[in-house]
């Protein structure tokens, strides 16, 4: 749609808020599934910022980067969920605090 004139810093504000919420969730949750979910939220926020910036200048570069972010998110989720399965098998729990053998 043409000529909507949404101010850029409002969108960036939304993006920052989403990022902060995602980060909060990341630091608080102990279950690894939720940690991965928080990562997705953060990635989404960054993607929003990129697309908004691209739309500001009317260039496709923002959406191209969005696609790359999407790729990264997809690969990361795939591998991450595989790790979740392994964690469940080895520690018999999804508590991330149990995986502290890198201690010291």
């Amino acid at each position: 749609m043409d000529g909507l004139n949404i101010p850029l810093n409002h969108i960036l504000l939304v993006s920052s808020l989403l990022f902060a919420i995602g980060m909060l969730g990341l630091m608080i949750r102990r279950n690894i599934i939720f940690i991965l979910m928080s990562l997705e939220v953060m990635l989404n926020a960054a993607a929003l910022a990129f697309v908004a910036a691209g739309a500001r200048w009317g260039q496709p570069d923002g959406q191209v980067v969005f696609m790359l972010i999407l790729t990264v998110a997809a690969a990361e989720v795939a591998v991450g969920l595989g790790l979740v399965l392994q964690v469940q098998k080895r520690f018999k729990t999804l508590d991330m605090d149990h995986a502290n053998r890198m201690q010291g």
Partner: protein
Amino acid sequence: MLEIVFFYIAATVALIATVMAMTRANAIHALIYLIVSLLAVAVIFFLIGAPFAAALEIVIYAGAIMVLFVFVIMMLNLGEKGDKQERQWLKPGIWAGPAVLSVILLVELLVVISDVNGPVSVSAVSAKEVGLSLFGPYVLAVEISAMLLLAGLVGSFHLGRRYLERDHIEKGSSQ
């Protein structure tokens, strides 16, 4: 204009949905809220003139990645015990420290973006333009992302294999 109101509504929905997603104890509930959040962000994409990005957001992000999450959660079969455990872990006291850090970061981000100005969406960027850009200047990026996906594929296949082979024998044992 009305569309600007839409933007604010979509933004609010996204924020609330994300907050709900972060605070649920049941994993499936959290995922549903997350999907809602992603859909709201897709609406925002539409509104700022990036239809291709919006489509990708819905199809891949909400449609594939979140579904993958759901599959894994169902496979893990956490049940009631998992919910109780989550509630136990999610006490109010632990929000304090991370909240401080997040607030500080938020303030910094706001300060940084405060002097950015300019309206968005003078004109929409169509899928065709994105496509031409991808196969033009960004073709290398496409190749590399293909390799990345391959790596992810192989990695997840390897990591998930053992689980499937052995665990289906022990299916039904407590977790």
